[in-house]
Every structure is written in structure tokens, then in C-alpha cells.
């Protein structure tokens, strides 16, 4: 089943709403708390990135008993060098974002750490799509 959340790019106070909404869904399905945490961290980081760098976008989450698939698509500036962006500590976030405690260059590495699979498709001037896969145990919903 699929969920679609619009992530507005003009109000930073709303950043994190999509991941919070999706977390409720995971709780209702009885997903293991540790998996819920990993999913929340990865999705939250992606959501924040989308707001900071790309003026928002669309988050889609799809769950089957086997896996959670999260697709975060934006029409932002794109990432010129994905390998460099994946480096811990590398950041292009503006100063005011850093002052809020974000933009430490840990977003993408953190996503990678928490996802079972992370794919980044990016085109300069067109946008970025981040695809996060979290595998679920075969047993499914034992919480």
C-alpha cells in the first residue's frame, strides 16, 4: 500500500511531518520498533534535505510485508557529485541551517547507515530522487 505526502519547501517548521505521519502507519502495522526507528531516521533526513536544498518535494512510501520503499523526489538543483555528497562531514547547507543544528554533512551518510539500500538519482537543474529500501523480517509484524 502506498502513501503520498507533499513536503512543503517554504515552511521549515513543517519539515519532519511526513516522516512523523508515516511513523504512525508503521506503528499501526506493528512493525518492529528498531525497524521503525531506522525508517524514521532515514526518511526524516531525506525530508529535511529536500526542504533545505530543493524547496520541498514529494515523499512516497510503499509497504509490503517484505519491505518498505520510500521515494523522495524533488525538483531542486541536483547533486553535482554524489560520492562527495556521501562523505561524512561534507555539507553545502547555508549558515542559518547549520545554526539550527542541521547541515553537519551527516544526512546522506546517516540515511545510508539506516537503510538496507539507498539509491540516489540526480540530474543537475532537474532534481533528485532518493530511494530508500528497508527490508522487513519474513515473520512480519511481531512488535
Amino acid at each position, binding site marked *: *500500500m502506498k502513501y503520498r505526502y507533499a513536503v512543503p519547501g517554504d515552511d521549515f517548521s513543517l519539515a*519532519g511531518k511526513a*516522516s*512523523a505521519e508515516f*511513523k*504512525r*502507519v508503521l*506503528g*499501526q*502495522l*506493528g512493525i518492529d*520498533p*528498531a525497524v*521503525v*526507528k531506522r525508517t*524514521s*531516521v532515514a526518511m*526524516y*533526513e531525506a525530508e529535511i534535505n529536500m526542504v533545505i536544498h530543493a524547496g520541498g518535494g514529494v515523499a512516497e512510501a510503499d*509497504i509490503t*510485508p517484505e519491505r518498505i520503499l520510500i521515494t523522495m523526489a524533488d525538483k531542486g538543483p541536483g547533486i553535482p557529485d554524489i560520492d562527495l555528497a556521501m562523505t561524512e562531514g561534507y555539507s553545502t547547507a547555508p549558515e542559518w541551517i547549520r545554526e539550527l*543544528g542541521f547541515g*553537519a554533512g*551527516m544526512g546522506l551518510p*546517516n540515511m545510508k547507515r*539506516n537503510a538496507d539500500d539507498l539509491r540516489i538519482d540526480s540530474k543537475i537543474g532537474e532534481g533528485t530522487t532518493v530511494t530508500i529500501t528497508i527490508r522487513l523480517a519474513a515473520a*512480519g*509484524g*511481531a*512488535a
Partner: protein
Amino acid sequence: MTDTSMTSFHSVTLDRDRCVGCTTCIKKCPTEAIRVRKGKAHIINERCIDCGECIRTCPHGAKKAISDPLAAKDAFRIKVAVPAPALYSQFDENISINRILGGLLDLGFDEVFEVAAAAELVTAATRDLIASEEGRTMPRPLVSSACPAVVKLIQVRFPSLIPNLVPLLPPMEVAARIVKEELHKGEEGVGVFFISPCAGKVTAARSPLGYERSAVDGVIGLKDIYLPLRAAVAKAGERPLSQAGSVGIEWARTEGEAEALGERRSIAVDGIANVIGVLESLENGKLKGVEFIEALACPAGCVGGPLIVENPYIARARLGNRALSLDPFAEGRTVSPGGYRWDRPIQPRPSRLLDADMLKAMIMLEEMEHLQGLLPGLDCGSCGAPTCQALAEDIVRGNAVETDCVFKLRETVRDLAGQLLALEEIKPPGLDKE
């Protein structure tokens, strides 16, 4: 692994005669645990975390905490009062702690032992734990387990944070155990009564979290004892009863526990909505470099508990003033060898779970989303559920029907009226002349 034993008793209950069926409480409940049915509020036990938010917000005083009457102590040979430090904040600073404790004795208790003194030991035990090998490997930040409403909130809403909880007994329990296992070791007929600012502690004494059996024999609500105690204190003389230092006393307000610990990289948060916000950030991995979180469900901390009589911020200021004239720690007591560890683990209580079978839960969830799209989205509460989303959930759980929504009901009536009109137009064939 769902722990159902803890859902059996709740201190927070409804006074049916006072409830007018308004929807104030359902809106304020942080776990959406209240519904209005047949004109009265109902608490869903599995979801209630005993935070007392409904007691605080009910305009009709219809929510109350079940606690023990003062007379309950008379069943014991040796009656011991263990007052929460928040008690001291309910009296003017020129009334000494000695006189407040003396007032308790004059109400018929044989002895008093301050929970504040136990809180200091919990601080020491927490420091020991943090310095230990085990403590060093625990996930950071550690989250205080002193507030029972917060522990329950974590069980029902943030189960992934259970490993962050400090696995130590709360000060109330430590105080009761000191009375029974150290001061009156091996004696029969010792009754320990906690004087409580909150409903959560009443529940914690009967259905403990993290330990099998509580040494507390009864919990008396602070506001229930306030008037007789006030009268007793007015006549009470100065007796040398006060032992606790400023550190223990300040546990009753926000930041008290964190300051006592001396951990600078800590967050102290109060008010259940703010606590949810901080735990949400923690679960999202946002709190880097934080070592300790003190989280208290009530505004300003325990001094803002639902069973308190004074305004939380006045109470907080008074407590601070009292602390100024005290030494930091009570003398002569050290952490017991056991270190006040929990004796059983805290289990998740996934109250949001729709069905243990994930496929069934997915079908229900889909139905819920569909229903939610049909509802007006005004979250008016007239149906008795706090939000349209909650009503949709109640419907798929089989606890409500679509026409519980007044807007859906109106639509249905309008459709029916249309059908009636259409039927009225139809005449039997024999009469249906040109």
C-alpha cells in the same frame, strides 16, 4: 511481546455524575485514549498513560485520580509517610520543612521518610551506572525513568527508545524500600504511604514498571490531604525531621534531576506535548551529542502535578527558595549494594497496532484511509473521537460507525429525504393516469 498485566489498573478515572459529555478531554489526551459515548467520557485503558492531562483540563472536575484515603494507614502497626518533595512547594517558605513533616506525624503517621532523600540516592546510583561498563555501552542519550507517564508514553508510542531508559527504580520506590528493608528490616505491619502530586504514581505503586512488586502500601493524593495537613501544620512545632538536601528537593521541578546529575549535555523537558516533541526528535536521530534527557509529563515538573493545589510556577519558585538554605545532599546515607536496579524489563505496549497479522492490519489501514477521505476533516469531536482520523480508526476497529459523524449523518438523511420524494412521485399503475 505485549505486556498486558500493566493495563489492568489505572488511577485516572471518570466521575460519571460530573461528566457532561463535552469533548474537552478527548482533544487534550496525548494518546487519544478517551472517547465520548452516550454522553459520557470513556477511558481506553490500553492507551492511557496516567499523565493526568484530562484531570487538569476537564472544566467540570469529572476526571479524578483514585487514591487511598488517609484512613488506609490505620490497617498497619507502624504507619510511615513518604512525602514527595513537591509537597514542600505547597506551603509558604516561612513554614519550615520540619513543620510540614511534623504536620504529617500529627495526622497520625508514626514516622516520615522523605522521598527527596531517596532521590539523592537515585542520583548517585545513576552516576554509578553511567560510569560503569554497562552504562558506557547503553544508547545515548539516556532517558530518565522517574516520571511514570513518560515511561508509559515510551512504551506505547516510542518503543524503540526503551533501551535508552535508565533502568533504576524511581525515588518513591527507593524510599519505600529503605523504610522496609533498612529502617524496619524484618518487622511486620509496616505500612508505607506515598504522598503524591500525581496519578501516575498511584498506578505505579499498584502496577509497577520495571519491578515486580512495589514496597508502597498506599498512595494518598496531595490535594486530598492538603486541608487537614494545613490545619495540622499550623499547630505543628519545630521538630528535627528534615534530612534531605537541596539536590533531592529540587527533583520536584524541571531540571532538578539533570542538574543533580551534573551532566551539562542534557535536555530537561516538561509538559507532555513538549516531551513528545523531544522524543520524536530523538527517535529521528536528531539529538546528537546529548547525554541525558530528563522528561516530565507535567508543566514545571512534579510541582505541576494534577494532584497539586498551588499554581505550578509559584510552587516551582517556592521550591527553589527553600533549596537555597539547604546543603546539597542529606548526610549519612549511601546507595544500597543492589544499586536500585529494575528487576524486570519494560516491554513495548503497541496500542496503535491494528492487528497482529500484518496483512490484516494493512487491509484495515487501507479502509481507514478510504474512510478518512470521506469524513469532513474538521476534527470537531462531535462523534466522540478526537479527530476524523481517530473516528476512521474506531470504525475499522468495529468500535464506531460512519453515521457517528454528524456531517455523514446529515448527508445520509438528505439522501433518504431525496429517495422519499422520489418514491412519493411514483403512483400505482392503476392510478397513474395521463
